[in-house]
C-alpha cells in the first residue's frame, strides 16, 4: 500500500512542554484519514510540521516518499491545505484573492480559479469583498484555494471551525465529493467525533501529543461490541440480582443508573422479567453497540472530547 504521509518519531518540544511526542503516523494514498484529539492534543502542531510552518524538534517526515526537509518545495507544490481559519486579503474579492495565490503558485490555467469557485459554490460572488464574507464563505474560499492547483494531498486542520450546523454538513459533503471525484488523499483533523466518524476511512487518535492508535473505522464497526443497556431505579440491586440469579458478571456501570451488559447469552426478556418481579423500575432496556466515542473514551482514559 503506497503511503502519502509517514512520520518517524516526530516530536515538538516547547520549554518543558511536549506538544508532540514520538509520533509515528501513516496516511495511505487515496484514503480520508481522520486525525482526532481533544483541544490541545497536538493536532495543529503536527499539521504545521507536516506543512513546514513549524520545525520539528526531532524526527522525520516523508510525504510522497520524499523527505520534507530536503524536498519541501517539490512536495508542497502537490499539497493543498487549510490551517485552522482561512486568511485572505479583506480588500479584495474572492476571485482576486485566488488570482494572487495562483500567480504565486505559477498556475497558468485561467480556468482553474473558476472551476475551484464553482466546486465550492462561490462562482457567483464576483463583486463581494472577502472582508464581507461570512465564516462559511471564507472556509469555502479556503478550500477553493487549496484545490485550484489540483493537489494530490489535502490537509484540512479543523475545517469546520466557526461553522454553523448547515455549514458543517456542506463542508463534509464537499470533502467527500473531493475524495470521490478527484481521488485525492485527505488528512482532516478535528475534535468533533461525529464529523470524523462520518468522513474518515481510518482514524488516528492523538492525546497529550502522543498518537495512541490508528484504527480502520470499518474494522472498528465490525469489532464493536454489542451490549444491552439498562437504566433502572436501583443499579446496585440490579447488579446483585443478575449476578446471583443469572450469573451475569460481564457488565459496566457507565452512569449513575445506567448499566451495560456485555454477556448476551441471557435473553433480554429474562433479565427484564427478573428486575420487574424484584420490584425494580426498568426505565430503559435497549440493545446498542460501541461507537467511536466509546472507543475514544476507552483509550484516552475518559472525559469528553473537549
Amino acid at each position, binding site marked *: 500500500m503506497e503511503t502519502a504521509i509517514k512520520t518517524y518519531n516526530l516530536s515538538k518540544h516547547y520549554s518543558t512542554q511536549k506538544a508532540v511526542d514520538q509520533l509515528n503516523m501513516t496516511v495511505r494514498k487515496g484514503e480520508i484519514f481522520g486525525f482526532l484529539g481533544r483541544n490541545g492534543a497536538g493536532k495543529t502542531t503536527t499539521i504545521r510540521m507536516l506543512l*513546514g510552518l513549524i520545525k520539528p524538534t526531532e524526527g522525520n517526515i516523508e510525504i510522497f516518499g520524499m523527505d520534507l526537509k530536503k524536498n519541501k518545495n517539490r512536495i*508542497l507544490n502537490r499539497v493543498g491545505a487549510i490551517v485552522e*481559519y482561512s*486568511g*485572505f486579503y479583506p480588500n479584495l474579492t474572492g476571485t482576486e484573492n485566488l488570482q494572487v495565490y495562483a500567480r504565486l503558485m505559477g498556475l497558468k490555467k485561467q480556468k482553474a480559479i473558476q472551476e475551484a469557485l464553482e466546486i465550492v459554490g462561490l462562482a457567483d460572488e464576483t463583486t463581494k469583498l472577502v472582508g464581507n464574507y461570512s465564516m462559511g464563505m471564507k472556509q469555502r474560499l479556503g478550500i477553493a484555494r487549496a484545490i485550484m492547483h489540483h493537489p494530490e494531498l489535502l490537509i484540512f486542520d479543523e475545517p469546520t471551525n466557526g461553522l454553523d450546523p448547515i455549514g458543517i454538513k456542506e463542508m463534509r459533503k464537499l470533502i467527500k465529493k473531493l475524495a470521490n471525484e478527484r481521488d485525492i488523499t485527505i488528512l482532516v483533523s478535528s475534535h468533533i467525533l461525529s464529523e470524523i466518524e462520518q468522513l474518515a476511512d481510518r482514524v488516528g487518535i492523538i492525546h497529550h501529543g502522543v498518537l495512541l492508535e490508528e484504527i480502520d473505522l470499518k474494522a472498528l464497526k465490525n469489532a464493536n461490541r454489542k451490549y444491552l443497556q439498562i437504566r433502572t431505579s436501583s443499579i446496585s440491586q440490579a447488579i446483585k440480582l443478575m449476578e446471583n440469579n443469572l450469573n451475569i458478571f460481564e457488565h459496566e456501570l457507565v452512569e449513575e443508573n445506567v448499566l451495560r451488559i456485555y454477556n448476551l447469552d441471557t435473553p433480554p426478556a429474562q433479565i427484564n422479567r427478573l428486575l420487574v418481579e424484584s420490584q425494580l423500575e426498568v426505565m430503559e432496556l435497549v440493545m446498542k453497540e460501541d461507537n467511536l466515542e466509546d472507543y475514544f473514551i476507552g483509550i484516552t482514559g475518559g472525559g469528553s472530547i473537549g
Partner: protein
Amino acid sequence: MLLITLAGASVSPFINFLMFKAIERLDMDEVNNVAVIDFPTYADQTNFFIILIIGVMLYGLLTTYSFSREYQDDTLKSLLIIPINRTMFIISKCLLVFIWIMFLTIYTLGLSMVFALLGGFAGINVTNILQVGKVYLLTGFMMFLLVMPLMLLTSILKSYVASVAFTIGIVIVNLVIMNSEFLAIYPWSAPLRIVNPLINVATFPYWYSWVAILITGFLGILLTIIYFNRQDIQ
C-alpha cells in the same frame, strides 16, 4: 493605506510652503537678508523635515504595515504553504517598501514643485530641479535603509505599537542631537550630513555617516531574514 501615506508625504511640502509664504509676507527675506525665498532653499528645507521627523515615522509606518498585515489578516501561513521561500518573501517585502518610499519621494518632489510654482518662488529651472531630484532620491534610498530595523521589530513583535514607539524614540533623539557632532554618526540623522556636506561636524569623517546608514540597513535586512527563517509560524 496608500492615501494615508500620500497625505503624510504632503505634510512637509505644505508646512514649509506656509512657512515660506509667512516669511515673504513679513518681508523677512528683504530685511537684513534673513531668508531666501527660492525653490532650492524651500526644497532643501522640506527634505530637512523629512529626514529629521516625518520620514522615519511615515516610512516606518508603511514598513510595519506591509509586514504586519500578513499576521493580522492571517495570510502568512497560506503564503508559506504555496510554498514561498522565506528569504524571497522578506526580499519581496523590502522591494515593496523601497518602491513605495521612492514613489512617495517622487510625489514629494512633484508637490514641492507645485507649491513653489504656486508661491512664485524663484529658481525653478531644469538645473535646480535635477539637483533637488538627485538629493531627494538619495534621501529616499537612505531612508529606506534606515527603516529596515523596523521590519525586524515587526517580525518579532507583530504589532504596530512597538514600531510607533521606536520611531518616536528615533525622532526625539534626532531633535536632541541635531546641533551636535553626533548627528554625523547617529544613523537616523546621518542623512542630514550626507545631503548637506557643509554641516560642521568635523569630528567625524564623512564616510562614518555612510557606514552608519549602510550597517543599520543591511543588518536590519539580514537579521530579519535569519529570524524569519527560524521562526515557527503559529
